């Protein structure tokens, strides 16, 4: 009886631990099932056009390249913005801030992390986009850069909090040894502590990038959603997530457009999957040293 119960508990534990695997597999299967027949009906090569024209009286074109470049541009810009703020902020909070400063900083960082993305998007539309427009003398403030700044706002708390944990978990002995050898505080931080915490910091950045790629509402509201291939931060772009969110509600079930939206989902999933893989590679490489 006892061993039987042990086995049951074991099975329950294994089951709960592998739920994520099951869910990932199910998502892949589900996405694949909905998107599959697109491969031969309009043809897989239809996805590699340079135009996304899902509603047309003449011929619908489902090229996802402009959507991919849109997502990549916004993500790259947001990453460039969030790394300095997130990582330097974490260094300050973990190493230099006094207790009272930390007590003010930490709650605010947590509040920023909890602001719903629609609210951030609304803020972007009404406040940030006019600022961007005037600052750079543009005709409109709905640009890739506006979206990237908002996404950086949303990702900074994640990057900052996780990096701070990484920095704080560097053994005390490292710090003391460095100071004892005559290094000053800045040298200790940038030559000893940050390199030691680097795997954690990189993981933090990757988490932030993951959040940025998947974010939908804020970019839908401020990037202008013009599906064109561009690398200009002051151009309007349409991201993959915004496309799915804007078009899925209205699309005819089982149509080519519907299947194309599922392909966007699959590519989005593959992108985040590769990102995670890369993050793990980096982590392992640094841990070996």
């Amino acid at each position: 009886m006892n061993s039987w119960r042990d086995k049951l508990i074991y099975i329950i534990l294994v089951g709960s631990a592998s739920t994520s695997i099951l869910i990932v597999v199910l998502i892949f299967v589900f996405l694949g099932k909905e998107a599959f027949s697109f491969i031969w009906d309009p043809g897989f090569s239809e996805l590699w056009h340079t135009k996304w024209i899902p509603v047309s009286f003449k011929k619908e074109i489902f090229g996802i390249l402009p959507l991919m470049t849109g997502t990549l541009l916004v993500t790259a810009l947001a990453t460039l913005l969030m790394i300095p703020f997130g990582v330097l902020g974490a260094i300050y909070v973990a190493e230099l801030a006094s207790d009272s400063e930390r007590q003010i900083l930490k709650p605010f960082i947590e509040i920023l992390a909890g602001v719903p993305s629609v609210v951030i998007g609304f803020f972007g539309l009404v406040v940030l986009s006019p600022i961007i427009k005037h600052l750079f003398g543009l005709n409109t403030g709905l640009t890739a850069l506006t979206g990237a700044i908002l996404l950086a706002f949303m990702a900074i708390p994640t990057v900052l909090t996780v990096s701070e944990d990484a920095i704080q978990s560097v053994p005390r002995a490292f710090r003391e040894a460095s100071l004892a050898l005559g290094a000053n505080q800045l040298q200790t931080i940038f030559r000893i502590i940050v390199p030691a915490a680097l795997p954690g910091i990189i993981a933090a950045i990757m988490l932030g990038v993951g959040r940025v790629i998947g974010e939908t509402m804020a970019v839908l509201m401020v990037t202008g959603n013009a599906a064109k291939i561009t690398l200009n931060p002051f151009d309007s772009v349409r991201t993959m997530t915004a496309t799915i969110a804007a078009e899925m509600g209205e699309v005819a079930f089982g149509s080519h457009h519907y299947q194309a939206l599922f392909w966007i989902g699959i590519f989005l999933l593959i992108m985040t999957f590769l990102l995670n893989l890369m993050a793990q590679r980096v982590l392992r490489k640094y841990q070996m040293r």
Partner: protein
Amino acid sequence: MKQIKENIMLNKLSKLSAIIFLASFFIVGCSPKNGEKTETVQYLTIKGSDTMVHLASDWAETFMKTHPNIEISVTGGGSGTGIAALLNGTTDICIASRKIKNKEIKLASEKGISPNEIVTSRDGIAVVVNPENPIKVLSIEQIGKIYTGAYKNWQDVGGPDQQIIVLSRESSSGTYVFFQEKAMKKKDYTQDAMLMPSTSAIIQSVTQDKWAIGYVGLGYGVKAQDKVKMLHIKDQANSPEISPSVASVQNDSYSLARPLHFYTNGALNGAAKEFVEFVLSKEGQKIVLESGYVPVD
């Protein structure tokens, strides 16, 4: 051991079903008593076009005041969503700002549904620009060329040397398709067109961006008149310019106008019939006018 367990299970199951069985009697037995006090409530669901949501809920609210035994729920989502819901049998009435497509009619007959079309009111689409823009009149051809990307500068239509910022609704909007059909002669939108998630986002953007052009329902345009300028429209280059208004939409002189439809499955009966009769009545058409749309005639 196993046998006994199964027996217990069976026992439990049969007890459970007995309880459900008895309970159902109880519920059935009770309902006539309640029925004596209030008549049976009929539910009516309306779903579809975002353009028509406000109008439909205004109708529903007034209608429910005089018909306490009918409960109506109205949800948006877009004309396509509404038609899809009609085909799936999840809504009684579909509101649509465009005509049902042949593809959808074919799909409906496959599912054994025969869509029945009722014109409830009319809507005009106003082309809006920033009040500081000197342009006052555009022809349909010029508007089409702006939206297909042939004209990229306000100079092309006699304005100042400024790049045109083209604003459109999302491709899921019924207005998007209607505008494409009427103003752009079924050509594709330019890749530079910025697709805005809502009418209010278009108004917001035109208010902020001096050289933007957008299109909105006449009702919204009239409400935002102090923030945006509604352009007068010429059907042909040499035809008279017509300003968007109730009168011009009604007498069909304004080019960018459309009927707003109800679609139901087959012939009307019961609550749906009463509601449609109300909508087409004098009182219902008065609400159309009050909501910024245009009565049928």
